[in-house]
């Protein structure tokens, strides 16, 4: 498992194509919103929260897709499955590498977004990395599972969002609420945050248990 994770990281370290493309894409999405909304609207925490998540989800979807297309293109999946390891471990390796990449991208994009929107910095923003990480974990878990299905179909670019987005609805609602409260400087560790963490746990377990059915030949 660590070997697969290490291989993914090494590949990225040498090419740097995934992180850089995701970063530019996320920035572009945010730019579109900035053009569409008035300055007053942009200063509202609710918009900032929605924007952060829209950018993360759409850039992230492409990133996760990419990770599995790479494996699929050269038939590496077959190689991975021939290894005497549990498919669950392959899932965790892919899942962790996706979490890692999205976290790296978000570490730059999130502060940049806050600055671009002119949101006030406050002490409660210290919680933002934790909230973002929670969202990324749930998103990557389901994303890895759905992408593994999508890459083996025709029209994989369209089928991934079709499958993933409706399933992610509960996670979105929770994540956007927690982030909105956080940006507004309110208490954010309430019910919504606990719901978010619970969804994370459920999604990771679902992905881990069902991944084997998806990849087996």
């Amino acid at each position: 498992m660590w070997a697969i994770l290490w291989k993914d990281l090494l590949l990225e370290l040498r090419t740097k194509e995934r992180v850089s493309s995701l970063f530019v894409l996320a920035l572009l999405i945010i730019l579109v919103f900035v053009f569409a909304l008035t300055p007053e609207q942009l200063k509202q925490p609710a918009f900032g929260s929605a924007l952060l998540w829209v950018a993360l989800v759409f850039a992230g979807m492409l990133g996760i897709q990419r990770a599995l297309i790479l494996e699929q293109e050269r038939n590496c999946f077959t190689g991975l499955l021939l290894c005497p390891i549990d498919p669950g471990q392959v899932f965790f390796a892919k899942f962790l590498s996706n979490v890692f990449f999205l976290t790296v991208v978000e570490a730059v994009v999130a502060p940049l977004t806050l600055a671009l929107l002119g949101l006030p910095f406050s002490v409660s923003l210290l919680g933002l990395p934790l909230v973002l990480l929670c969202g990324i974990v749930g998103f990557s878990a389901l994303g890895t599972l759905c992408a593994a299905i999508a890459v083996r179909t025709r029209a994989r670019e369209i089928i991934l969002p079709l499958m993933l987005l409706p399933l992610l609805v509960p996670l979105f609602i929770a994540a956007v609420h927690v982030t909105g409260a956080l940006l507004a400087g309110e208490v954010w560790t309430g019910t919504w945050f606990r719901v978010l963490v619970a969804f994370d746990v459920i999604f990771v377990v679902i992905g881990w248990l069902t991944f084997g059915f998806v990849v087996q030949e």
Partner: protein
Amino acid sequence: MDGVRMNTVTSRSGLADSFLPWLTCVAMLAALAMVFLYVPNERVQGEVQRIFYFHLPSAWMAFLGFFIVAGASAAFLWQGKRSADLLAQAAAELGMVFCSLVLLTGPLWARPIWGVWWTWDPRLTMTLVLWLIYAAYVLLRVFAGDNETVARYAAVLGIVGVIDIPLIYISIRLWRGIHPKVEQMAPEMAWTLLVCTGAFVCVFTWLLWLRLRSLHLRDEIRALRQHLVAAS
């Protein structure tokens, strides 16, 4: 061997084919008569409320479809039987039809009563998300072709979709809440609802049966064709 299988399908279909259409026809006529002739107007909402007798059973059938998908998917992953996979496919397609009916009849009622076509009430949002998950499932089947692997993907999606439903429900419930709840029903209304539900169960079963048989026949044709190609 192909011949033997075909015989069993034809003989089983004989009974259901002669029985189900008539039952459905009678039940549906009875339901229509009750909705339009028997049941009295609701006191506040008037005529418009009659759409409820088709709206609610549709919603139940949509849920029924989803549970069949989940059950059949689990059975398929467990035992790998082709028939379970076909059942899941047929139920998903039907579930989507009834889910669409719910989403169509709802706004027709909501416009005169609430004054808007749509509102982001938990149940409405829930039904929309449900419809989207169904759509993804059906499209996955369309895009991914038809073989053993796809059956497994679809089964995984079907199961994950059902596990997701309570989560969606919790999150949307926490989020906001004006959908009417039925509190008290006049006996005539309850009877009408019961007959309508019965009629919808008949329609659902009949369509499910037809779709299932067409899927089985498609399999048989494919097998026969392969057989011919191999023989020639």
